[in-house]
């Protein structure tokens, strides 16, 4: 067994994360098990979770449980994903302990002054299957469960939605824009994925709604029976002056639904793949990964190329039903 942590940051990139290496797709965790790279996911369809019986200022235990329940409900409501979650009751267990219980609760960690919440995993090293996953919410920060949010407080449901994405096996998405703050760190100006690594500022409740990118990710990990025949995928390769590049952020825009889904080039061949997406035409855009800290997405052993200009594919890429687009080649040029 091994325990790994992944967190959501405030203002600057997470400092707590020990990241699994992305495996086959854009926003999923991968682990090495038995010498093979496998997707990190739950082996069972229903994930049972417990909630700690301790509230914090402004958030009672009942409020906490209700907000967590709404966040689990949002993931469970994705029609093309089969994963479900079961509330197992309140507990005195502490998140982060290897006790075989998936526990969500508050912990006071003022030392982690950039981490709002974090998710840890216990993984079966032989199979790569998830055994346990805990989430702690840092009570050193001010929290809110008010329906419309509260000024100067972080929205608990939004942060829980992000962490439950991790708990389910999703990594970070790069679909977001940030600007550097004078005092250090980054401020989110916009995001189109709950799984963007940096949270919206206090008072915002914009992070309560799953986006197309999140839905594609969870559907790719836990597809329903008919999703694999109805949905398709697109794949391709990004090169710079003919040489493949690693870590390029690829955005697929659907001009019909006006939604965006992101991915990365994830191997030495510069290849990317986006699965579990509705069939239809897509516009592909490639950009450097420069709106969050690179270690929010990849571990330090990988060199990510961010020295290139944004470029679009000159062909409309078609996602078929139940199949793949075939490789799309996109060339970028250095800045």
């Amino acid at each position, binding site marked *: 067994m091994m325990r790994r942590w992944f967190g959501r940051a405030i203002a600057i990139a997470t400092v707590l994360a020990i990241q699994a290496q992305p495996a086959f797709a854009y926003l999923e965790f991968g682990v090495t098990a038995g010498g093979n790279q496998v997707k990190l996911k739950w082996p069972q369809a229903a994930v049972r979770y417990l909630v700690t019986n301790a509230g914090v200022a402004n958030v009672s235990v009942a409020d906490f449980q209700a907000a967590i329940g709404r966040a689990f409900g949002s993931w469970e409501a994705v029609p093309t994903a089969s994963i479900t979650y079961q509330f197992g009751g309140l507990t005195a267990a502490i998140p982060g302990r290897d006790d075989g219980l998936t526990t969500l609760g508050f912990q006071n960690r003022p030392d982690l002054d950039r981490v709002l919440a974090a998710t840890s995993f216990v993984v079966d090293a032989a199979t790569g299957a998830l055994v346990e996953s805990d989430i702690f919410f840092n009570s050193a920060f001010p929290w809110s469960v008010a329906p419309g949010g509260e000024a100067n407080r972080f929205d608990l449901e939004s942060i829980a939605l992000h962490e439950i994405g991790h708990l389910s096996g999703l990594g970070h998405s790069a*679909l977001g824009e940030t600007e550097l703050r004078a005092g250090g760190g980054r401020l989110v*100006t*916009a995001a189109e994925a709950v799984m963007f690594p940096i949270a919206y500022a206090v008072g915002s409740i914009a992070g309560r709604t799953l*986006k197309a990118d999140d839905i594609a990710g969870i559907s790719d990990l836990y597809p329903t029976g008919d999703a694999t025949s109805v949905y398709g995928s697109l794949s391709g390769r990004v090169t710079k002056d003919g040489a493949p590049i690693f870590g390029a952020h690829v955005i697929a825009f659907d001009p019909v639904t006006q939604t965006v889904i992101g991915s990365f080039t994830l191997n030495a061949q510069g290849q990317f793949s986006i699965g579990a997406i509705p069939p*239809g*035409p897509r516009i592909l*855009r490639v950009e450097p990964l420069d709106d969050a800290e690179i270690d929010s997405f990849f571990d330090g052993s990988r060199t990510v190329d961010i020295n290139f200009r944004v470029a679009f594919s000159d062909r409309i890429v078609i996602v078929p039903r139940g199949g793949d687009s075939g490789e799309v080649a996109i060339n970028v040029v250095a800045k």
Partner: protein
Amino acid sequence: MALLALVFLASGSRDAAAQGVLEFGRLEISAGAVWLGSRTFGSASATETTPSGGSFSLFNTSSEVGGAAAFDARVGVRVAGTLVVEADATFARPELRVTIANDVENAPSITAVERLQQYMIGGGATWYLPRPSRIVPFVTGGGGYLRQLHDRGLLVETGTYFQVGGGVLYLLSSHPGNRLKATGIRADVRAVILNGGVSFDGDRHTAPAAAASFFVRF
């Protein structure tokens, strides 16, 4: 309404007119070319959500299916007077174009392109103005099934179409009493209304069309 008025005006002289349209024949077969005009789908934006729930634009797109030449074949059977019921098939390879502009990181504007295969298979009716002349005006209307294939059939989108228009027929030759009754050229303009198929905005779209074909009558 205009079609009904023409039918009414013509009804009193149907027999004479049928003679006047120069050995009208029973069966008409034609083949030719059609120019199908473009249809636009408006603009769209790739956006992200701001902390207040607003939109932040990454880039904008405007989309269209471009105009294209098509091959058109038609078989008609005269059912009464100068009224012909027809079956027709059209094949075209128009370009689907998406122009991308206003990128937030100043990427150069570009037009992404894909060539479609488009089949229109349907039927309709054509009514020829009964007049004793080599040049015969007509009105036509009909509809059918639209099938558009992306990327050599990787994805199929279907819909329906309706068309209405009018034109003129020019008789090149007539052979009274022969099996081959006549040959000629037919030219028309139409408004083609497409429902479904490739349509980014989900709306019904109208495109102009102009056709010219060679026909034979039996």
